[in-house]
């Protein structure tokens, strides 16, 4: 471990070598613990502020009445479902290219949280669809591609847990994750490419948001909360994965007080 970082110091300048040092699971373990505490605290703070704005500041919608308040979790969950998939596939790709052990662990740590947010997006969407469209579900391009995203997460989790050798599991999962990335732009642009029942984007980079400022504030606060929560959950899970995979390493045995 120390030999690696010493020899790397000669070739790379300060910041680069620090990053590489944390690519070692043993070094990342305590760092992940510290970051997880911060992200967890931020998630709670943003969720409290977001829920307050969502229910007590944002006004009643002129067309949809109070049913629109589902938006505050629906949009946050839908954004996270796509974002987490891209991050997961990014770690998986990094693991394939660089063969770093931590990358595959990160991809596996993100998948369950991504699947959870995908489920929440679909569930809240169904509960929003019923009063506004009159249907819990329609085979619309946006809904169908989001359902495929859920199956991609399930596929990744099932595939990686079906293979006993973690390194082989990581590589197989990485291929699936990378191929599945094509689905993310399909979800995102589905409301433009097809004539869907699902409404278009309420927030885009090129146009002013089509909603009241306080509604937008609530939505962004909830999205930030979901973001911070996802980081905290993934870091907490990766710490367990590190301990599970390195259970016979001296530092893990030392941690348990075996020695």
């Amino acid at each position: 471990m120390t030999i690696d970082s010493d020899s790397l110091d000669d070739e790379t300048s300060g910041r680069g070598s620090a990053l590489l040092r944390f690519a070692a699971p043993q070094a990342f373990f305590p760092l992940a613990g510290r970051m997880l505490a911060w992200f967890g605290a931020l998630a709670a703070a943003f969720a409290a502020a977001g829920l307050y704005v969502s229910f007590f500041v944002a006004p009643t919608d002129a067309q949809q009445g109070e049913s629109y308040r589902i938006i505050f979790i629906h949009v946050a969950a839908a954004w996270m479902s796509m974002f987490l998939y891209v991050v997961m596939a990014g770690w998986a790709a990094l693991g394939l290219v660089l063969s770093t052990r931590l990358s595959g662990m990160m991809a596996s740590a993100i998948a369950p949280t991504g699947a959870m947010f995908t489920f929440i997006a679909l569930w809240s969407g169904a509960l929003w669809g019923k009063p506004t469209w009159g249907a819990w579900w329609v085979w619309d391009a946006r809904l169908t591609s989001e359902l495929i995203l859920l199956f991609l997460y399930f596929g990744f989790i099932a595939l990686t847990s079906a293979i006993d050798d973690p390194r082989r599991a990581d590589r197989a999962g990485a291929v699936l994750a990378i191929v599945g990335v094509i689905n993310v732009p399909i979800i995102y642009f589905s409301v433009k490419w097809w004539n869907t029942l699902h409404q278009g984007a309420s927030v885009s980079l090129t146009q002013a948001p089509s909603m009241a400022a306080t509604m937008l504030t609530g939505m962004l606060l909830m999205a930030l909360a979901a973001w911070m929560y996802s980081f905290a959950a993934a870091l907490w899970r990766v710490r367990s994965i590190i301990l599970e995979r390195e259970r016979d390493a001296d530092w893990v045995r030392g941690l348990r007080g075996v020695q």
Partner: protein
Amino acid sequence: MNWGSLHEFLAMGGYALYVWGSYAVTALCIGLELWLLARRARRARSGT
């Protein structure tokens, strides 16, 4: 402030099932994930 009373808040303008159904399931999912994460962390620590 949008609500005159607690009852009004809970009724969500007649959309209680949909609004609270979304929020409750989200809270359940997060609670379940945190419980699973804590359990996994405990087991990984003790090596079982």
